[in-house]
């Protein structure tokens, strides 16, 4: 989706603001959110076909920009647990489990589960090869995609192939449509191609793209 999360190339989003001696977690609750997300993943298996990434992207733009990173994670984690019926709003409000509710059980994985991004061992001939010129498609899907807006329609060069990975894209409701195994390539775009004459004629941006995002140029 063309959301505010896809911010490569935008202006006006403030300074970077590095912080000296930054702690891993600024508040204890941030660490708890990180750990809760890690340890609840198995409970969402077979229940929630949504993707953590897309749920983050669907946070309303103004909220997304205002919220801290782990506050976004917490919002998405709660939404998913509620949606799957693993917890209830009342329980969350009371901070205690309802006595009458049945204990959830773990479900076996299902085909639509969010796959972690492992390389897939399937036979598939790559459509492109290193040094080949390619153009990123001009596409604007409403679901999750890993083709950033700044690269769409731009001419680049394949520099490396990485093997075959499951496509992570979803439809606009967040459902993964399947693995759609595809070769992933690193594509080099010159800064001039992306940003015009104002950019350095030496610099470039390398973007990792699934094959379906590319067409021969």
């Amino acid at each position: 989706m063309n959301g505010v999360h896809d911010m490569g190339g935008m202006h006006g989003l403030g300074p970077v603001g590095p912080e000296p001696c930054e702690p891993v977690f600024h508040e204890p609750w941030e660490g708890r959110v990180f750990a809760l997300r890690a340890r609840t993943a198995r409970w969402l298996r077979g229940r929630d076909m949504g993707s953590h990434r897309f749920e983050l992207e669907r946070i309303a733009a103004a909220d997304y920009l205002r919220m801290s990173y782990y506050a976004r994670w917490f919002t998405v984690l709660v939404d998913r647990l509620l949606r799957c019926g693993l917890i209830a709003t009342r329980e969350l409000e009371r901070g205690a489990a309802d006595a009458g509710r049945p204990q959830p059980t773990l479900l076996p994985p299902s085909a639509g589960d969010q796959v972690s991004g492992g390389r897939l061992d399937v036979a598939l001939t790559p459509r492109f090869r290193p040094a080949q010129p390619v153009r990123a498609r001009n596409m604007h899907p409403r679901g999750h995609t890993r083709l950033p807006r700044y690269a769409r329609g731009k001419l680049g060069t394949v520099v490396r192939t990485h093997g075959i990975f499951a496509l992570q894209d979803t439809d606009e409701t967040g459902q993964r449509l399947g693995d759609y195994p595809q070769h992933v390539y690193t594509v080099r775009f010159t800064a001039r191609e992306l940003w015009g004459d104002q950019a350095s004629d030496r610099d470039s941006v390398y973007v990792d793209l699934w094959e379906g995002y590319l067409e021969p140029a």
Partner: protein
Amino acid sequence: MADDHEHQTVPSDIALRVKALESVLVEKEMVDRAELDAVVDTYENRIGPRNGARVVARAWTDPVYKARLLANATEAIAELGYGGAQGEHMVVVENAPKVHNLVVCTLCSCYPWPTLGLPPVWYKSAGYRSRAVIDPRGVLREFGLEPPDDVEIRVWDSTAEIRYLVLPERPADTEHLTEAELAELVTRDSMIGVATVASPRTGDAA
């Protein structure tokens, strides 16, 4: 958050809500407190940029290792015992006198956890994610780096499952240092590409 000023001494609303969620999930036996503690401890104390620094120092001192690292980073990093979540598909990009690499994830926060730990806030900030690709030299200036015009900047946007680690240049005057001493010089920021590694004698960057 709007009432922060009135209630600075009480825990923030979100801290209470996270605590409530944790209590519910513990009570339902969906998570175990000790396991949560272990996850936090792992990323606060065990997995961090010291790991990546060891990889860099090995590459600086062992040309054969460096060749393996550049050819197959995931396997070469695993030789030192590092791997797992967010490090399954590693690529190491090498800085050189005329090449400077910079890593970003414009869409989110992708970062090589086993070698660098969890990303700092600035790496996930809108300012960094938006500008690293269109104005890398401006971003580097904010970190105090000004590569000359004849240095090529390569920005790596981690949009898929590959995670990037920058191999910074070995600073001058370090011939006498051991691998462990070299690792002490290597900073997290130099492995993201927003810093270079300073020479121990002069403090000047390479």
